[in-house]
């Protein structure tokens, strides 16, 4: 007899560390493909698994191998139908070796594999140079707490609710009139008493009748179980997400001609980061995209990022549109409102005043947080540095910045500049979580 070993319960993912080593090796290439993914994909989809092409650089395993295009070879093939010695067969496709040389190279080229959510986020964060603490916070999935929620007819044996089960069983026994043990005992003693007396015709008949009765009762008892599967009740648990609220995120962006590919890409990453933050904290997050030139419109994500529109720049229209949507669809009592605005800072001089007013009077009262990023050229970054002067919108928002603690503004020229915008938002996290 052979030795049997059941390995199915052995720990899984034996090759997980090999996978990690492989990903580490191909890190640069994977980072690039995640960057592309962020650029082209939807904001809400960054936070997911993602298939990436097999990296080529740094992961080849060279060996000495024969060159396909040199020398004399012989191929031995089965299934000759019509050839005789000396027949010449033209080579297919410019000297390739066709059927006799199964190409493995091509299949490896279009080979894609799936990165898990954690791995995608890791690569994304690395690009943004997020501090570790923040990474950890963002990667957590909403935790669920089981909460008692009534009873159910199916479940795990450990969750059997004995009280409820026995109550059901009792009710059923009464309803079906299951004979009690006491009844049986009573009849048995009766039989015993009769048997103790001298036997007569009457007692014998009586005993027989009683025996039959016992038999009937016992059969009935057997048929009607003491505890039947239909009686069993289990405690039901409902997974309850711990933080329980909804948030809406407004993405405002200037789409006039001055916002190019690079500017939009930076803006998108900025939005993605805010969205990641929100999805972690809130059970439900909506995203509203508002783009504006000299007039503002609510659009879908694709239009938001990919359609350009010509026109002037009147920022206040976007703020008005946002206010209108809040009034219409997102009552402040139910929604946490976050806003992120990206722009290159151009605005009609007269309009900036209106923006200040709108923010000050209306929006900042409604918003949990308002982040403004001005996307500037990398060459400009050292000129502007931290000076107060800048574009007209920048100067205008400066006034708001001083007044409202939940207002943040920042100039960004590279991905690494994005995080500081959110620094306070993330820094506040631990204390909030403690109080929650």
């Amino acid at each position, binding site marked *: *007899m*052979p*030795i*049997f*070993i*059941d*390995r*199915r319960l*052995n720990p*899984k993912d*034996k*090759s997980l*560390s*090999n*996978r*990690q*080593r*492989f990903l*580490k*090796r191909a890190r640069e290439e994977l980072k690039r493909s995640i960057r592309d993914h962020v650029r082209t994909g939807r904001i809400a989809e960054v936070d997911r698994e993602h298939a990436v092409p097999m990296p080529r650089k740094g*992961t*080849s*395993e*060279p*060996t*000495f*191998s*024969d*060159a396909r*295009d*040199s*020398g*004399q*070879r*012989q*191929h*031995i*093939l*089965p*299934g*000759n*139908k019509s*050839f*005789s*010695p*000396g*027949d*010449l*067969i*033209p*080579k297919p496709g410019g*000297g390739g*070796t066709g*059927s*006799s040389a*199964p190409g493995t190279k091509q299949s*490896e080229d279009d*080979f*894609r*594999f799936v990165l898990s959510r954690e791995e995608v986020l890791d690569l994304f964060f690395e690009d943004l140079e997020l501090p570790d603490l923040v990474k950890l916070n963002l990667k957590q999935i909403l935790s669920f707490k089981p909460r008692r929620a009534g009873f159910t007819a199916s479940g795990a044996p450990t969750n059997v609710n004995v009280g409820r089960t026995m109550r059901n069983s009792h009710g059923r026994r009464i309803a079906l009139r299951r004979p009690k043990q006491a009844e049986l005992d009573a009849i048995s003693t009766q039989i015993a008493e009769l048997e103790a007396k001298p036997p007569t015709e009457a007692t014998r008949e009586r005993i027989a009748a009683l025996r039959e009765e016992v038999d009937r009762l016992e059969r009935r008892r057997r048929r009607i179980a003491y505890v039947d599967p239909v009686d069993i009740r289990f405690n039901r648990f409902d997974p309850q997400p711990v933080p329980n609220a909804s948030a809406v995120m407004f993405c405002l962006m200037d789409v006039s001609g001055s916002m190019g590919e690079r500017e939009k890409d930076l803006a998108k990453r900025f939005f993605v980061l805010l969205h990641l933050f929100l999805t972690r904290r809130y059970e439900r997050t909506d995203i509203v995209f508002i783009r504006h030139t000299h007039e503002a419109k609510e659009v879908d994500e694709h239009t938001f990022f990919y359609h350009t529109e010509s026109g002037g720049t009147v920022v206040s229209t976007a703020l008005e549109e946002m206010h209108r949507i809040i009034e219409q669809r997102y009552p402040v009592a139910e929604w946490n409102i976050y806003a992120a605005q990206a722009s290159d800072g151009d605005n009609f001089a007269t309009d900036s005043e209106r923006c200040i007013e709108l923010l000050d009077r209306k929006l900042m009262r409604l918003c949990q947080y308002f982040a403004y990023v001005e996307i500037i050229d990398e060459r400009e970054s050292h000129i502007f540095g931290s000076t107060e002067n800048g574009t007209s919108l920048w100067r205008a928002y400066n006034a708001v910045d001083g007044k409202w603690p939940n207002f943040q503004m920042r100039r960004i020229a590279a991905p690494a500049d994005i995080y500081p915008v959110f620094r306070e938002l993330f820094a506040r996290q631990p204390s909030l979580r403690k109080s929650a």
Partner: protein
Amino acid sequence: MVNQARKSELLFSGSDWDFAKLSRVYDEIEAIGVEELHLDIYPVQMEVISSEQMLDAYSSVGMPLMYRHWSFGKHFLYNELLYRKGARGLAYELVINSNPCIVYLMEENTMALQALVTAHAALGHNHFFKNNHLFRQWTDAGGILSYLDFAKGYIARCEERHGLQAVEAVLDAAHALMEQGVFRYHRPPKLSSEQQREGLRERLEYEERSYNDLWRTLPTAQDKNKPEAGDESLAERKKSLNLPEENLLYFLEKNSLVLEPWQREIIRIVRVIAQYFYPQRQTQVMNEGCATFVHYTLMNMLFDRGRISEGAMLEILRNHSNVVFQPAYDDPRYSGINPYALGLGMMQDIQRISTEPTAEDRDWFPDIAGRVDWRDTLLDAWANHRDESFIRQYLSPALIRKWRLFVLADGADEPHYEVASIHNERGYSKIRSALARSYDVGASRPDIQVVDVDLLGDRHLRLQHKVKDGIQLEDESRDATLRHIRSLWGYDVSLAAMDAETGAVLSERSTKEL
């Protein structure tokens, strides 16, 4: 008959398996195999695994334990994708040449399939591993698992001490030379036991601790004043280094001047594993053929004795015929010659020649034709041949006709292929030797040897590639591999391509040019 009563009784019914059934089926199959086919096997250890674990095993070259390396992760992803897409099924079983012989069974298999797999792996492969001379002489079935365990632990310790990157660099380079890391011609030294390895490690550690640089400054004895006499010293140098050397990894491990002791040990590990797998590469057709022949014969015997139901037999036959399916060259499913089909075909052919030979067979195989006892012939072939010699010896004209084999000559500069031989009187022996040659692993791998190095001079390592039939090396991978060799050797390396027949040097590539 004694087992008249048992005869009518089915070994199993239904498609679900459990351990009691597996055990009953194994016992029965083993009894028949030993009694009817005279099989001689290692004790068997059966392990039930899930598909995930099968994929794990795939990526670590089929071994139950393996050291960690990124390339295994890459292969895992690749296999997993093919499997998930349904492009490739997983093997029903995996068997390891060890003592006891470890057989992996997939949990998804039905009972009929488990019976088939048991006969195939636990009897067929197992017998082959235990009896074939290549495995007997070149591998150590008893020691391999403990050696892998040691290798895994050793490499993990190295990673801890010297860092992941340093270890990875050595492994990458060693993996690139795995094909050139085997002894083809003389037998490798036996794996040392656990104790010896422990002793070796202690000695190395002691040497590291007590190393004193001062010793190096002592003048060496009278060696210096020997006259350098051209050819003679060259010959002597080669002799002292045992050159030419075909096993590049062995040479680097023993002679490299830049490697630390732990790096040498890692190279040794890679080399030992490459050597362990070398017989398997040379006996693919025979190994699979033997296993397939055994399962086919045993299953039919069991069915004839009424121990397997018709339904189960039908399932077994269906799987069997999937395994031995050989499409013709022009079929879109064609992907080379199926070793299962070729092996089984040849072994059944031997059976036929032994029992009902034709006149042609008597001509070609005078010593086995009509010998009746095909068992001995097969046992003898299984024990003493590898693919190349097996085909050269036993591929019969009847089988060549049945398969309609033909040979295409393919010159790289020609615009067309030429049909060289077909299944006719003139072609039989040519096809046979061409097919045999294509299974000669030693001949079909690039033949690269260390030919010279001047350890006292510039330490330039000279390799030589014997170019056969004008088949050169692929440039890109050759350069990358040379770079790996340079990293292990520490000094420049050059590779000369020399025509095997004329001896003319065709080209030379040195790491200086890279």
